[in-house]
Structure formats: structure tokens, C-alpha cells
């Protein structure tokens, strides 16, 4: 696959993959784990992410995957994908399409991704631009809830145990699923466009602020007892808003989130294709269709067998393995090899 990215395109891509995967569901687990201190835990997670990205930027040239690791990463991304598609279908069936069979919705999402991934790479990587005008809308809707927020819900602070800190951090880091894409796509950024620590800082500050607002709003809107029974708190906050022009704000939020999610699905499938450098040959097209066939069948099995919990756990541990552990070893081994090669 032949394409290149500007710095802006690269960070827009990363932002969409990270926020599209889990953005409406990550608040509840963090708050359940770290209670009122969830936002402090989240800031710490943010710092960890910043350090991770700085390290990625420094050593990304050594992140060279062999065939086995490419397969491993592809399986992991496919896993994210199937869990994600199943989750989208679940949310749609709860909020919008109560009586529509799951296979219809999954088929439509998968068909859209198939159409996109049959296009040229430049088209796929630029799809995220569609979401830029929608982004301010989400926060506009969310800020309408400001009068209902109880800021005293943030207190008392600093009362959680070490165990709760660790659990909270684990959950908070899950909000950043997709960070590993940095390593996969960094090599496609134009050589002339330098990414400095300041650039990464700005990116982390932006994504962090967006996430932090949703965490803070959730803590301030619900009591701790309520949060446990609300799986998608942002949607509930919007549902409770009374505005003159529209009765159900949450529906619009769901629609925007759906667009976001479908684009993320397209991006993730594209990443799998990219890992194997699939071209638009007959064989390549067969593989693209095959991947989409899997993407159609497996989410239906997850929905049918209700495997969401297992999927979520795999995702959490998978993220640590694929964003922290494997890159660490791959970079160390390749750096050592290249040093050796230089000596000889």
C-alpha cells in the first residue's frame, strides 16, 4: 500500500481510533474502581500515555514486525473489531432498533467497511475528516447539562487504597485502546514533518481534556450508587436534558457516536490490511472480503452467546500486551540488532 500522511492527518487518525473504540463506556468502570478520585487517576493515566507516546516517537524506527508478530497484531486488532462491532449492535438495539435482527445491523456496518476498504488507501485514511464538524456538537450537547452538575460529588478526595488506584489505572488506560496504532502508522508520516514532544503534549492535552470532561461530568451528575447501574453514563446525561428544540438529545449523540464508530471500524480493518500490505489484486480483494466475512460472523456469535464480559477482559489485557510489552521487546531487540549491524 502506497500512501503518506501529514502530521495533522496522523493525529486525527489516532484521535478517531482512540476515541471511537470505547469513549461512551469507559467512564463507569473507572469510577466504579476509583470512586470520586477517578478523575485524579485518569490524569495519572494521561501522564502515562504521554510518556508512552514520547517513547514511541523516540524509538518507532525500531518497531519492525516480523510475519509472526504481524499475524499476532492482526488477530488482536480483529479481536478489538469484533468486540467493537458487537458493542455497536448492542447499543443500537438498546437505544434505537429494538426489534431489528442483529445480523441486519452488523451486515450494514460490515458492508460499509467493505466498500471503504475497497477504495484507495488515501481515501480511507482521510475519512476521519467527516467527523470534525460533529465533534464540537457532542460537547455542546454535553455542556447543556452543566446546571445539573453537583460539584460536591468530587469530594472527599484522596481516600482510595493502592488496590483501587491500580484497578482504576488499569481501567483508565483502556480508554486509550488504539495507542499502538502510533507505531504502525508513524512510518507513513512525511519525513519533513517533525513530531516534537510539544506536539505529543498538545495531542494528549486535547484528547485528555475531552475524556476528562466526560469523567468529571459523570461523577458530578450521578451518585456513586447510580453509576454502578448506568453502563453508558454520557447517553443518560443527554437523555435527561430538556431543551426547547429537541426532546431526545441522546438520540443525536448516539447517531454521532455511531458515525464515529463506523469510521473507527473502517480504520481498524484498514490497519489489518496494511499490516499485510494487501494490494488491490484478485488475491487482495479475496482477503478483504474474507476479513469482512469474519467481521460479520464473529460479532453475531458474541451477541448470541453474550460474550461481552470475556471480550472486555481480553481487550484490557490485550491492550497492555500489545501497547506496552510487545513494542518494548520488539524495539529492544531491533535496536540491539541495528547496533550490532553498525559495529560489523
Amino acid at each position: 500500500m502506497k500512501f503518506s500522511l501529514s502530521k495533522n492527518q496522523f493525529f486525527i487518525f489516532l484521535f478517531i481510533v482512540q476515541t471511537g473504540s470505547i469513549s461512551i463506556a469507559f467512564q463507569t468502570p473507572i469510577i466504579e474502581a476509583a470512586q470520586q478520585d477517578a478523575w485524579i487517576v485518569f490524569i495519572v493515566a494521561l501522564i502515562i500515555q504521554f510518556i508512552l507516546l514520547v517513547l514511541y516517537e523516540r524509538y518507532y524506527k525500531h518497531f519492525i514486525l516480523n510475519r509472526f508478530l504481524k499475524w499476532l497484531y492482526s488477530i488482536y486488532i480483529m479481536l478489538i473489531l469484533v468486540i467493537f462491532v458487537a458493542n455497536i449492535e448492542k447499543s443500537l438495539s438498546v437505544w434505537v432498533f429494538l426489534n431489528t435482527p442483529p445480523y441486519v445491523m452488523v451486515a450494514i456496518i460490515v458492508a460499509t467497511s467493505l466498500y471503504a476498504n475497497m477504495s484507495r488507501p488515501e481515501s480511507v485514511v482521510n475519512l476521519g475528516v467527516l467527523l470534525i464538524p460533529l465533534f464540537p456538537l457532542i460537547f455542546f450537547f454535553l455542556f447543556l447539562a452543566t446546571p445539573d452538575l453537583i460539584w460536591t460529588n468530587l469530594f472527599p478526595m484522596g481516600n482510595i487504597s493502592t488496590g483501587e488506584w491500580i484497578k482504576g489505572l488499569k481501567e483508565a488506560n483502556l480508554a486509550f485502546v488504539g495507542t499502538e496504532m502510533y507505531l504502525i502508522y508513524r512510518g507513513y508520516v512525511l519525513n519533513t514533518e517533525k513530531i516534537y514532544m510539544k506536539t505529543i503534549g498538545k495531542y494528549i492535552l486535547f484528547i485528555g481534556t475531552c475524556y476528562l470532561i466526560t469523567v468529571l461530568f459523570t461523577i458530578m451528575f450521578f451518585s456513586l450508587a447510580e453509576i454502578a447501574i448506568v453502563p453508558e453514563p454520557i447517553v443518560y446525561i443527554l437523555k435527561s436534558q430538556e431543551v426547547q428544540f429537541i426532546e431526545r438529545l441522546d438520540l443525536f449523540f448516539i447517531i454521532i457516536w455511531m458515525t464515529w464508530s463506523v469510521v473507527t471500524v473502517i480504520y481498524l480493518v484498514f490497519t489489518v490490511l496494511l499490516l499485510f500490505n494487501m494490494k488491490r489484486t484478485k488475491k487482495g480483494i479475496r482477503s478483504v472480503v474474507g476479513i469482512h466475512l469474519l467481521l460479520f460472523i464473529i460479532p453475531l456469535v458474541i451477541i448470541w452467546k453474550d460474550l461481552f464480559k470475556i471480550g472486555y477482559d481480553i481487550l484490557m489485557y490485550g491492550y497492555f500486551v500489545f501497547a506496552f510489552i510487545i513494542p518494548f521487546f520488539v524495539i529492544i531487540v531491533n535496536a540491539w540488532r541495528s547496533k550490532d549491524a553498525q559495529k560489523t
Partner: protein
Amino acid sequence: MEAYNKLAPYIKTLFHDSADLIVRPLNWPEGEAILCQYSVLANQRAVNEQIDTLSQKFQEGHSNWGDSSSSTLEVFHAAKLVEYVSKGETVILFTETNLLLRINLTSNTNRSVMEPDSEHIIQGAHDGFVENMDINIALIRKRLSIPDLVVKKMIISQSSNSPITYMYIESKVSKVTLDEIEYRLRKIETEYLFSSGQLADFLEDTVWSPFPQLMTTERPDKVATNLMEGRVVLMVDNTPTVLLGPVTFGSYFQSPDDFNGRVLVGTFYRLLRIVSFLTAIFLPAFYIAVVSFHYEVLPYELSKTVKIAVNEIPYRPFIEAMILEITIELIREASIRLPSPIGQTIGIVGGLVIGDAIVSAGLVSNVMVIVVALTAISSFVIPSIEMNTTIRLLRYPFMLAASVLGFFGIVIGTIVLFIHLINLRSFNQPYFYPIVPFRPRVFKNIFMRLPYTEPHNQATSFSPKEPVEESGDTKE
């Protein structure tokens, strides 16, 4: 007369004994001369004057007596005779010397240069192209009196002898684009080519796309500004509509009026056009989705009114919308084909009488009439007639998607539309620039009419470019 008696039947056979062909002997100071011309195409008075002048020059013994700005002396050849006469020129054959004198003085049956009906503006130039390529070129040259403006001619179809003219500014045009256009023009094989629409079919990158990839215009001022932005203009003879390429999606929302008025006013109307583009595509689909699936998004009072209106209608909202949309299209089509006074009457009868009757008959709800009327008005706001028709066509699949899947259908439709737009090319260049490749700094130009400083050029590649050319910015 002897030569005439021999040659005349042969010449007439070459032109299949056409009734408007004149083949007659000509009075010439020395030797025999035969005049050939199509009487309907030649400017008789000017030709006679030219013949008198040339015969006088011949008598006076000038060495280049046949050469002037409108005549040339050549060696006779039957193929040349056919070519020149077919073009409307007058040819005089000198049988003894075997020479041919061509006089290019054709009759000008052109309408006057007036503002095109499909591209009215309030301020600015009010002239428009006519059905004569020379006049059209003159209208452009008048605006761009620079030697850099290059005019090239190419005969596309040998059987119909259709000339295509393309123009560009040497210092502005991209070499790659120009080569591509010339390559595509050379590749055309057709029996005849009479309109710019036919030419566009041969040149466009994706003929089956609903979106036009070459802009059509009848305005010389629009052509001049586009030339300055590095675009190429393609003209077909005998048609006032010219083609501009490569173009971007955003350029269809610009009007010369934007640049003739105030910056803020221009920006406001450009934004209005973009909003109307969205309304024209999404409003009926949105209404169908709300009525069919998502009643709960409407505020209580409004939802009550809509429910009462819809409850009386026997059809599904999609069928209801289709009835009205097709009616609007019928009215539009009828008013175009009829003479303008009757056309206006049809508009009034269709819009008011049928609109009112259709609601009274209970075929559609009054809310649907409001929605469809607003949609129709929105679609007419787009300055380009082709984009206008494209939008009208696009709303149907969106209506269908909304009636099947509600908001989700609209979302999926939007993503598919977006992917299609990103994939589109105009002469191999990105159609959806500055969204693809994404240029945040140029992005604002789609929505805002900024103070004029300099023309901006189009991106030549789908991928972002390194500042230094040929730096190998892509990775395999």
C-alpha cells in the same frame, strides 16, 4: 469552359450533388477559374469584394497576389477542396496552374453576446458565451490580454470534423494535468461530437458518478478566473457551454457574485449555499426518519401536530414524500420545456393549486408539503445547474435509507457518500480537496469568501506533498 464542363460534375459528386453547393465558372483575368462554396455558409458580399481585390492584385502582377488575412493560395488537392468547402470557406480552382485559392469569409449567424439564463448574477459582467468558438475565445482574450494564454485546437472526430479548442495559461497550468487532458482528448474515438456534455463523458474520470467532475459554464469571467487558477478550458464548436477542469467539489458553491460584493456578505451567502446543500439532500430523509422511527426527538407540541397531520394519510412517509417530490420534478421539467410565460403559469398552477389540492385530497400531509417545498428551494440555491440536479437525484437514496433504517440509514448513506466523494478525481486530481488531502489552512476557503489576495492552485495529488518536489514522500 472546357475545364469547367469536365470538373464541375466531379466536384458535385464529391459533395453528393448537394442543393446548397455552388460550382460555377468565374470571370478571371487569365485562364479558367471555378468557384466552389456552400451558399448558406459563405458571406457572399465579403467574398465578392475579396475576389475583386485579389483579381486586381493578380492583374497588377503581384508575386503573392493570393495571400491576405482571409485568403491563401495552395496547390490543388481534392481532399483539401472538400475540407475547406465543408468548413464554409470559398474555394477558387485555377485549372491551368493547378492552384487553389481559399477564402475564409463565412457568414456569421450568431446571436448576440448576452447573459446566460442559467447563471444570472446581480453584480459584475453580464456577457456570456455564444455558439461561435471564435467569439468565445475573443471574450476570454479580452479579459486575459497576456501572451501566456495558450489556445490549442484539435480535431476529435474525423467523420464529423468536430474541432475542440482547449485553453490554458502556460505559467499556471500543471504540466501533468495538461498532458493528461491531451492524452484523453487524443484517445476519443467517436462519429460525432456536438456538445460539451458529450465531451465530458469522454473526459471524466468516473462517468457513472452522480457528481460532475468537470464544471460547465457560459460565463467568460468565470472562465478567466479559473484559467488564472491553473485550470484548463475545453470548448466544443457551436455550443456556448464550456468545460473547466480539474475542479473541486467546493468550487460548485462559489458564484462570481461572492467576489463582486463585500467579504462578509460573500461569506454569508456561501455558508447559506452549503447549508442549502445539506438541507436539499437530508431534509426529506430526516423528516421520513423522524416520522417513521424517531418521533421522540420532536418536542411534545410539535410531535402532536405532526402526528395529527400524518395520521390522516393512508401511505407510508416515504411514499408520501415520493408523490410530492415527483410532482415537483414534473412541474420543474414542464416549466423548462414550455415557453416562459406558460412556464410561469405552470409553476403557479403546480405549486399552489396542486399543492393545496393534494393536501385536501389526503394524499400527503401539510408538513410534508413544507418539507418538500423547502427542499426544492434549497436545491435551487446552488449556483451550478449540474450540482443542483445531482443533489436532486441524491435525495432519493437517502429518503429510501431513512425509511428503512431511520437515522442509522442516513448515517450509513452519509459515510458511503463521503467515501465516494473522497474517491472521486477530476483529471486525476483530488475532487474533494482540501478535505483530501486535508489542508486545514485551505479548508476555511470552502466556507468563507476571504479578501482577495491571490488565486490558489489545486492540489495535484491525493497524498500530502513534501515541500521539496520528488522527495519520495510515499512509503511502500
